[in-house]
Structure formats: structure tokens, C-alpha cells
């Protein structure tokens, strides 16, 4: 794909499902377990902190937007440290790919296809993502435009359905377990909101007129945060924190309980299909940009030749690196957030901020 081909709308349409497709599945379990009645407040807090993180990300990408990730870090940090930082970002993208492919596959297996071997489901998702990576982000974003409105609609639909028997009192006294629990509960949603940092990979592909001021990222963070909070509110008013925390995919249970009878039966499957499509888009994104950057670092000319071995390797890793869904739950809720926020999503963009300011000052940009 040639740089500068994606419009602002296409990028927004890519980023919102990118964050939400995984943020709404397993992640709500963490704030429900830790913050209990304050789960929705944890989500709001995560949104607020996410806007703060977005500020640093915007600063990071608005400086020299045409540069690829590793090139950007090389200019900021020097050749050696810059290459290592670029490699760290890329490896995290693959780490994310491995987690997401397993999460999406477990959603399908646990909820709909229990007798189907996990290998088959991960293979299906990997193939789709490989095909997406092969076609490039322009094609993926065009496909995404078709799915995106329905994807958003699913959140609204679930919320409206939950209004049939809402237990609003489940939202009251959010600080009952203490402010510490609310803060602890905010980490997992924040880290998945922080995935917006992948814009550093995508920014050169954004149309040149919009590269310099990617303020729409704030809108994406706010939108994703609000929808994530709406999702948690839907779970809380339907299941309460007590029952909600027991489910691997709480929102799926809400869908099942709301659409379990008569004519609405099966609507939950439709919604989950949309979310799996969101997951497939995200996987294509991660595979495409991860391999793209690897090619840049190691000077491989033909990125497409890496799609098949790369996709297969990550599929195998997604199957072998975690034995059970419980392990995956632990990693996505309690391990990956700290790992991601401690490095490429939080600490690195924040630490790079003074360097960018220095460069901007030199260039007379401040």
C-alpha cells in the first residue's frame, strides 16, 4: 500500500473497533471483580486517564508524521536505542496479536462451537487476518466501513434491551469498596484503551492533510471509553457485579439472557458475529503493521512473503503459550495491562515527550 491513502474517517473506523472488539469481551471482568459496584467508575476513570495518554500519543505522532515507527525512534533516540525501541513496539504488536487471536477463538469456542478443536478456530481467524494483511489496510478499512455501523449499533441494542429490566441500584455507591479498588479496576480497561498507540504504525498511511494534527484520536479515545463504560453499565444493570464477575465473557451472557426467548432467540449470535468480525479486522491490522515494521528493521523487501510463516507462527504461539482460558483471562486482565502500560502504551510515549518537545523547539515548532 502506498503511504497517505487512508482518510481520517477510515482510520477512526479502524481504531474504534480495534480497541472495542477486545475491550468489551474479557476485560469487563477485571473491574467487576476488583471495583465491584464501582466497575463503571473504573471504566470512566480509565477513559479519563486514556485521554491523558492520548495527549502523549498525539504529540508522538504529530512530530514527523511521515516517518515509520522505527525511523521515528531512531531520529529521537539514536540508531541503536531507536531500533530496539521500534523492535519492542513491534514485538508488543505481535504479543497483542497472539492474545487477541486466542481471545476471539475462545469466545467462539466457549459460546458457540464447544466441540470444534481450538486449532481449527484459531486457524480460521488466522487465515482471515492473513488475507486481510495480504490485501493491505486500504482494503481492510473499506471492509470495515461496512461492518462498523452495525458494530456500534450492537452496543446500543444491548443497552436498550437491558433497559427492559434494569437494576439501576447496582450502580449505586461505586466507592463502597474503596477508591483503591476503583483505581485497580481501571488498569485493565485503560491498557486496552491505550492500544490506540498503534497509530504510530498507521500515521504514515493517513492522508497527508490530516497527519499533522491527529486530534481525532481524542475523539476515538472518548468514544471508545464511553462505549466501554456503556458496556459495563449494561452488564451491571443486567447481571450486577456479583454474577457478572463469574462469566468469562459477561456481555455475551447479557446478550444470551436478554435474547433467549421466542422471536429474539439467536440475536446474540448475530451480535457476537459482528464482534468476531471486529476481532478479525484488528488481527489483520496487527499482522500487517507488525510484519511491515519487521521488514523495515531487518530490511526485508517483500513483506507479503512473511505473512504465511508469520501468521502460522503466531497461531501456534497463541495455542501453545496459554494452556487454558483461565490463563488467558489472567494474562489479559492482570498481566498484559501492566506490561503494556509499563512500556509501549504508557511509559515510553511519556518519556519520549520531552525529546519531542526539544526537537520541536529546535525546528521552531513550539
Amino acid at each position, binding site marked *: 500500500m502506498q503511504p497517505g491513502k487512508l482518510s481520517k474517517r477510515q482510520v477512526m473506523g479502524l481504531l474504534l473497533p480495534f480497541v472495542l472488539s477486545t475491550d468489551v469481551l474479557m476485560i469487563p471482568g477485571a473491574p467487576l471483580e476488583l471495583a465491584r459496584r464501582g466497575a463503571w467508575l473504573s471504566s470512566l476513570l480509565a477513559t479519563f486517564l486514556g485521554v491523558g495518554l492520548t495527549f502523549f500519543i498525539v504529540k508522538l505522532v504529530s512530530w514527523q508524521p511521515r516517518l515509520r515507527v522505527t525511523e521515528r525512534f531512531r531520529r529521537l533516540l539514536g540508531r541503536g536505542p531507536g531500533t530496539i525501541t521500534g523492535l519492542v513496539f513491534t514485538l508488543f504488536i505481535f504479543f497483542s496479536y497472539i492474545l487477541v487471536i486466542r481471545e476471539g477463538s475462545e469466545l467462539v469456542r466457549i*459460546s*458457540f462451537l464447544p466441540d470444534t*478443536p481450538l486449532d481449527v478456530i484459531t486457524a*480460521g481467524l488466522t*487465515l482471515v487476518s492473513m488475507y486481510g494483511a495480504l490485501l493491505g489496510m486500504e482494503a481492510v478499512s473499506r471492509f470495515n466501513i461496512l461492518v462498523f455501523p452495525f458494530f456500534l449499533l450492537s452496543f446500543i441494542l444491548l443497552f436498550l434491551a437491558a433497559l427492559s429490566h434494569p*437494576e439501576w441500584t447496582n450502580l449505586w*455507591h461505586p466507592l463502597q469498596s474503596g477508591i483503591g479498588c476503583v483505581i485497580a479496576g481501571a488498569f485493565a480497561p485503560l491498557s486496552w484503551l491505550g492500544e490506540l498507540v498503534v497509530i504510530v504504525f498507521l500515521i504514515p498511511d493517513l492522508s497527508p492533510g490530516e497527519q499533522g494534527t491527529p486530534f481525532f484520536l481524542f475523539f476515538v479515545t472518548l468514544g471508545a471509553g464511553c462505549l466501554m463504560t456503556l458496556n459495563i453499565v449494561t452488564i451491571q444493570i443486567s447481571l450486577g457485579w*456479583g454474577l457478572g464477575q463469574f462469566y468469562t465473557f459477561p456481555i455475551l451472557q447479557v446478550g*444470551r439472557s436478554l435474547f433467549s426467548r421466542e422471536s429474539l432467540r439467536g440475536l446474540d449470535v448475530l451480535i457476537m458475529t459482528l464482534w468476531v468480525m471486529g476481532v478479525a479486522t484488528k488481527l489483520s491490522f496487527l499482522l500487517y503493521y507488525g510484519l511491515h515494521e519487521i521488514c523495515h528493521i531487518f530490511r526485508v523487501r517483500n513483506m507479503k*512473503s512473511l505473512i504465511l510463516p508469520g501468521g502460522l507462527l503466531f497461531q501456534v504461539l497463541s495455542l501453545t503459550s496459554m494452556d487454558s482460558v483461565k490463563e488467558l483471562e489472567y494474562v489479559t486482565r492482570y498481566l498484559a495491562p501492566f506490561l503494556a502500560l509499563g512500556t509501549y502504551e504508557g511509559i515510553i510515549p511519556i518519556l519520549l515527550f520531552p525529546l519531542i518537545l526539544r526537537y520541536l523547539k529546535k525546528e521552531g515548532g513550539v
Partner: protein
Amino acid sequence: MRFLRGHRVLPVILLCVLLLIPGCWSGHELTDQLIVLGVGLDKVGDQVRLTIQGIRPEAAISTASSPSGSGGSEQPPFSLVAAKGDSVQEALQKITRRVPRFIYGGHNQVFFIGESLAREGIMPYLDLFARSQWSQEAAWVVIARGGTGQELLTTTNLVAKYPSMGLAETVRAHQVDIPTLFQFLLHYHEDSGAQILVSAAAVKNQTAPPGYQMEQLRLQPNAIFQGDKLKGYLDDSDGEAYAWLKYGFQGTRFSFPVSALPGAPVLGVSLSSAPAEFRILSTPDLGVGVEVNCNFSVTEDIPSPLNSPAAIRALENRLDQTLSQRFSLLFAHLQADQADVFNLAEKVHAYHLALWEKDKGRWPEVYAQLPVEITVNCHFRHSGVMSKYPGFKE
């Protein structure tokens, strides 16, 4: 990937993906399945007995296609298989080995739970079903009053071919509200932890002539649960009053004497309303306010008392009093049993956090002492297509 440039292989890859995406793995033909309609769970000695009522699709098809409707066979179109085990899983495993079919639970309608098991605690026995991917949480949980779940699965009724389906039809026809497994789990996790489940007993219609006395399930919302254990039953009158408060009147037909005098004529009404509203009163002491607003129409009045606005108001007041008495009695019994089945604990928790924090450890005792203020507002709407008793003659 160079060979993909011509995009000749792409359709093949796409087809492979399409084959994999639907995930049609280990499919089962309809005639190779035993489709579960009802599940019975009973305690037998130290073991649990699992009984499964399933449709044999081919039997159902032959019954439907035969001119007589009987299929030429006296055998029921459903199968009943049972096994005992130390756990539900073990019993299910035994059934699976015995039945040469794929047991499909996605259409299960009901769990009939034997009384002895219900008194011991039902959660360990419903665990397997709550985790099931087959949406078993939408199935009803019904307690077999004074009997076993297996007995209820063998109830034969001429109108309903399958007992479990007969239950579904009864529920649809009479707008009965039966808590599902999901609702049971939901209420179990509420602050009060108490709830009312529906009990069923197989009874014969004794008033029908011989040969027409069909067996049918008598459903009543009266099984009091604290946590996952059956504590006792409400009597018929209280069970009815509970359903009115919890689910609204929903076209309930109800008869009551027009005055307190002995031998007073009876008046029939049809009521409709939304569920009752519960409020926690805190001035000066903690208390409960229950408000019921309902509309009613007169369906039977002998002789007609509704010949003036004053008579209508008097009738409304009389109905208010009658219903208030019923609800007061219900609350008196519930408080004596310390069963907060309307989850008032959640309201105290939400609106009076300090009080809740102070009393949550001894909530059942606090609940038992709460003053209850019941307000019923009945409004007359119409009296059918006639404005007066048809036998009225000047």
C-alpha cells in the same frame, strides 16, 4: 507469496476460509439425536438421580403423519432415561453410555427438582447446566412439591404430548411467570439471597367425568428459597398474592364478597396492573412502603351494585381493603419466615448505605421487624359489553 499475484489461488484460499469459519464440526443428524425437553434432578440416598426426557424425532414425525395422530403405536413419543451418580456429571456420563444417540440439550425447557434435593441445596446440582454452552440458563427451575422431578416428567396429558412442552404451553396460555435458571442465579447473588420459585405437583382433575380426568401440572409460585435451599412453602392465598405483587395482575380473575356481612353476594373482577412498587421509608424508623395501582373490570356481579358513582367508589374501596388484607397477610408470613423475597435488602443498601452497613449482618432479623405500609389503589374501568347485571329488571 509471489504466486498469489495473479490472484488465481485467492478464491481457493477464500473457500478454505469459508469452510472453516462456520465451524461445522462433528455434526449430528436429527434422527441421531435425543433432544432434551426436560431434566429431573432428585436425591436418592447419597446419590443424585438425573432423569432426561427427550424427543425421539422420528417418533414425533410418525405420530404427526399418521391419520389417527397416534402413529399406530401406544408408546409415548418421548424417551425417559435416568441414571444415578455421585455427581450430575457422573449420572450424565452413564446416560450417554447407555443411549446410542447424541444428547442435545439446547432445547431444554425445564429443570424439575425433587423436594429432598431442593431442601439440601440446588446450586451444586445446577452448576453443570449453568456452565453449559447450550443456553440452559433460559430453562425454568421448578420444584416438585412433595415428590420427585422424575414423577413430573412422566405426567401424561391428552392435550400436551410432552410433559415439558405442556408446561411451556401452559405458561404461554396463562401468562405464568416461572423463574429461569438465569433468574435463579441472579436472585441468589442479590443482597437478600431469598426468592420464590415455582413448585409443581401432578394432579388429576377430579371434577371431570371418569375417562376425562387428565393429569396436569399445578404450578404455584410458593417455594421459599434462602440461598439455594428450600425453606418452606407459602400457602395458596399467599402464593397468589406474591405473584400479584411481583409480576402484576396480568388479567387475573378474582372473586370477593361485596360486603363483610355473612352471605354477601360475590363479585367477579378482572384485574390488570404493573408490578408493585416498593419503597424504603426512613422517617422516623426504617420501614417498607408497598404501592399497588391496578385497573379492574367487573366480569360478574350478582346483583348489580354499580348503579351510581358512589357505588363504584364503595366497590373500589372494598377491593382496596380486600387486596390490602391479602398483601398484609403475605408480608406477615414472609416476615415470620425471615424471607426477604422482594429483595428489600438491595433497596436499603442503595438508599440507606449507613443503615445497611450497620445491619447487613443481621438483615433477616431486621427485615422481620420492619413495619410494612401497604397502599392499594384500584380503579374501575368497565363492566364488559353490559353496564349492568343482565338479570336486573325493574
